[in-house]
């Protein structure tokens, strides 16, 4: 009798450990990283690094293929940008999504970049019409916020996209969260659910080391 019971106890402990392991592993998973490629030139004495991301209407791969997402060079959704401390990031964003429109029009203003402006397909702009914004690239703790112009219907190009480029200074080491302020989480209340609340899609972290 006691053998059976202790066997039962053992099985219980194994199941418990299994559940604990599964929950912990589930919690620890993080999306793949985006590394900045160093360049030779420097701005105001700070080394410049390049980061390129593409913004798409549907991720295509990963657990949520139909969610909007930032994709890294080899095309899987990732938002963990690693960058060296005290440097300048030259961000190039290939924006391929159609406009959704900003809820708070103030985020249509370019803030926190060098020169308070961005270049969209070569043209420097300081603000865009909030209703034409598809996404934003905003790092609240650094005060950086750049609206990304949506691709309108009759735009050519394979795939039709707006190339948005801007530079911003990166301070000392730390972890700076960034996110999109356009309610582009389709199908969720206020458009702020789903991809907007999942790392790797419309929210991420700038890891400065």
């Amino acid at each position, binding site marked *: 009798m006691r053998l059976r019971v202790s066997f039962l106890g053992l099985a219980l402990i194994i199941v418990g450990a299994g559940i604990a392991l599964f929950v912990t592993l589930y919690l620890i998973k993080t999306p793949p990283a985006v590394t900045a490629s160093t360049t030779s030139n420097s701005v105001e004495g700070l080394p410049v690094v390049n980061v390129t991301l593409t913004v798409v209407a549907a991720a295509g791969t990963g657990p949520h293929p139909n969610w909007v997402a930032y994709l890294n060079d080899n095309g899987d959704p990732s938002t963990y940008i690693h960058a060296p401390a005290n440097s300048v990031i030259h961000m190039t964003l290939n924006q391929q999504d159609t406009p959704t429109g900003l809820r708070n*029009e*103030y985020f249509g*203003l370019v803030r926190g970049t060098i020169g308070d402006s961005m270049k969209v397909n070569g043209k420097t702009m300081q603000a865009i019409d909030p209703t034409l914004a598809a996404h934003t690239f905003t790092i609240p703790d650094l005060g950086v916020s750049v609206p990304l112009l949506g691709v309108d219907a009759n735009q050519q190009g394979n795939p039709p996209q707006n190339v948005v480029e801007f530079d911003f200074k990166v301070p000392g080491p730390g972890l700076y969260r960034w996110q999109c302020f356009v*309610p582009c989480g389709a199908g969720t209340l206020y458009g*702020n659910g789903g991809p907007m609340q999942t790392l790797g899609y419309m*929210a991420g972290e700038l890891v400065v080391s």
Partner: protein
Amino acid sequence: MPQRRRNLINIIAATWVLLAAAGDIALNSLPLPPGSATDIAGSETQLIRILAMMAWPIFLAVVAGLVFTLWVNRVAPAAAEPGAAALRGNSRLQTTWIASSTTIVLGLAVFGTITLANDTTVPAVAHAEPNTPLEVQVIAQQWYFTYRYPSFGGFESAHLVIPADREIEFHVTSLDVTHSFWFFAAGVKADAVPVHDNSVDMQPLKIGTYRIECSELCGIWHGSMSDDNAQIVSAGDFTTWAQQQQQLDAPIMKYLPPYSHTYVPAPGVYGS
């Protein structure tokens, strides 16, 4: 009562008086939250100080009573003695205990109501120069606070800067889910509820940089919605800052919606 027990009671009473006094003196000088950066923060700190200074002796008294009875009369667990002298119901003690705890507690409630009444009514006369309160709107959206200043053409900014000389009237609202604007040092906490205007008044006193946090769970970046450089500045600095912000906001001014206490956001998936 045996001698041993009487002087034990005296010792415990003495230590209680000593500790209670020491605690209360310390509490009197300890910098309790939320500090005195604004008038309502000052009254809140005073209330918390009084609560703490009343709670500490009571806590000590009950713990002393508990420890005394448990310790003095302890018996080895095995010895199952016949029942000690039963303390039969003593209604006088019960009524005094209930009466005293009721008076203390309801007294605190009365004091709290008075403090609350002073804080929430806009003091008409208290402040010298222009006592028309400066209206500052706090807009909470999923995962950052932005601020609008209607008296300066309604420009919007991502950092809170307020002058130290005038009454400030916060109008807190949200564009999506429920947030809560917590200006810790100013003693201000007001929930930001969509399509609802929650207003709080206060008079800043101390210049400095303070921390703002969101204190109502609002999703993934609830913890990071904080901003560490909200500033209370002098009147002159404030006007220069405001003008500078107006130039910075110039390109977007024509798109910003007209200033209003609540904004009805299209809910996205639901029909507006």
